[in-house]
């Protein structure tokens, strides 16, 4: 278990934990891998589409440059394709394997930058320890975001619209009701059902506490 959280007990509160070994939702992941081993291009494109943006987000956060991030992710996925289809390497878990590959690339990029920046004559391995921590943090953040985004996908479009409106766009119930041309009560119902549904979807070790404003929490202080 890894904990990732931030608590400001004076008002707003977010608490969440992630089970680091998330259950492998891809039952057909093994099948995908075996298809890639025999050179199935369509299977490779499926993997590409599944992971490209996630890897891109991670890389962009680490290296900061869009073009460089694009290139690094393309390289990693190309390596994946070659490793599996040519060298017949079989990864146990595609997500872990890909993220490890991109992480190594990122580490090299950062190391090179440090060496370039260092003064002439000084060749130090000044790759700071906290860079590793930062990489961990970004990896976990991506996982968290992905988990939440996945949950949104499982809501009905109506619930999705309500949840996005309230929690992402920050609209009030009234504003959302006006925008969608319906009653505030209708919105509240969808919201309640959506949250029930989210609770049901999240595994017991992952809970997200949506902020309820400061009233409830401050009651306890």
């Amino acid at each position, binding site marked *: 278990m890894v904990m990732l959280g931030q608590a400001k007990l004076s008002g707003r509160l977010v608490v969440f934990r992630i089970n680091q070994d998330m259950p492998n939702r891809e039952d057909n992941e093994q099948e995908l891998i075996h298809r890639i081993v025999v050179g199935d291009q369509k299977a*490779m494109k499926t993997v590409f589409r599944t992971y490209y943006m996630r890897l891109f987000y991670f890389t962009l956060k680490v290296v900061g440059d869009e073009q460089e991030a694009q290139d690094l992710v393309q390289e990693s996925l190309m390596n994946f394709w070659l490793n599996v289809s040519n060298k017949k390497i079989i990864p146990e878990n595609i997500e872990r394997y890909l993220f490890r590959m991109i992480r190594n690339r990122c580490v090299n990029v950062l190391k090179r930058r440090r060496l370039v920046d260092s003064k002439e004559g000084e060749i130090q391995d000044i790759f700071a320890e906290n860079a590793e921590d930062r990489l961990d943090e970004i990896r976990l953040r991506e996982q968290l975001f992905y988990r939440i985004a996945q949950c949104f996908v499982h809501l009905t479009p109506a619930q999705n619209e309500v949840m996005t409106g309230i*929690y992402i766009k920050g609209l009030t119930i009234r504003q959302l009701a006006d925008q969608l041309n319906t009653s505030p009560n209708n919105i509240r119902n969808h919201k309640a059902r959506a*949250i029930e549904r989210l609770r049901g979807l999240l595994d017991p070790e992952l809970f997200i506490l949506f902020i309820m404003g400061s009233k409830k929490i401050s009651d306890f202080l």
Partner: protein
Amino acid sequence: MPTPSEILGILDRFLRGESLSDSEREELKKWLFAQEIADQEDAVVFSDPEWEKDFTGYLSLLRNRGKLEEEVQVFSRKAGFAEVGIKEQAPVRSIFRRWGWVAAFAALVAGAAAYSFLQKNVSESDSGWVKTAAMQVEPGKDGAILTLADGSTVVLDSLGNGLVAVQSGFQASIRNGELVYNATQEFVTEPSYNTVHTPKGRQFSMVFADGTRVWLNAASSIRFPTVFFGRERKVEVTGEAYFEISPDAKLPFRVLVDGRAEVEVLGTTFNVNAYPNEGSINTTLIDGSVRVFAAAGGTSGNSIILRPGQQAQLSQGTQPELKLIEGVDVDRTVAWRNGLFNFNNIDFAAAMRQLERWYDINVVYENGIPKDIELYGSMTRDVALNDLLIGLQKIGVKCRLEGRDLIILK
């Protein structure tokens, strides 16, 4: 039952990474899930606004199918993957009436099994309404016609690569399915103008010498100088086009829209919709900054500066009105460029007009436009019309296809 301060104590230790006993864990869970979901006015997901922005950015990355497909192409080329003639199908979401109507139907393009299932159901319950047309109406595809300065025309076939035209100052070729212009001279004394137009049922994309990219939807056109010159880059557009303008501070980009409006641009991404039968010219800004003028040759007078996510709407008629619209559904506006129809929040007739342009058909309303049908959702554009009609039938739209006329009854 633990007191609030006891709960806080447990919570505090939990947050610091200390291990909790099973009973403590249970209490904490109970407390957390017991919090009532009140409709607080200021509910947010993350306590840190930076996180919230980050998450929103993450979500839009995940949903950016256009960019994803571009990267897939880059990868496929490098890996030497086989060229696919037909675009691969993006995942399809079902279209159904919203707010509780349960008429959702399975994805139209889920494969032969699903298709035959749908067909079977239709013939059982809706006898007679579906006439499988003798001719399959295919969806639109890539293609356009290039008209050179001397009036000669070239049909652009996206599947062939190679030179299309070489004239003074430039050369045009097809590369990877788009029309690419390259300047062969630094300066020209007198520019020549070319026009690319897409008939109904076709779409195309092109790249100018400065790197600016334009996607044309069906029934649209763009007229442009073959080499950008002078103090501005100016093009003329009709129909619908999506622009990604290459930034150049010295040469502002201007788009004359259907002779009725003008957009001034400084390195940006935006979509212009100017079909004459759509009631207004809509310019939606996705990224960067533009100024929209309410008349051609705009340098003064009525204009609006847009920020990303906003739209300028210029109404038709003798006294056109320029309005600023906030909170535009950008996904819906640029869905066409991502190979999708997006029918969220548009009226039935507007959705039918999109089908008219893409499938090159005429929609005829036998009993007037149905008022009680609300479409919702999006789907890929590469569906044969008959399949789509079966879907419409399922949600209660009575229609039939006669040749290229789609007859809609109430």
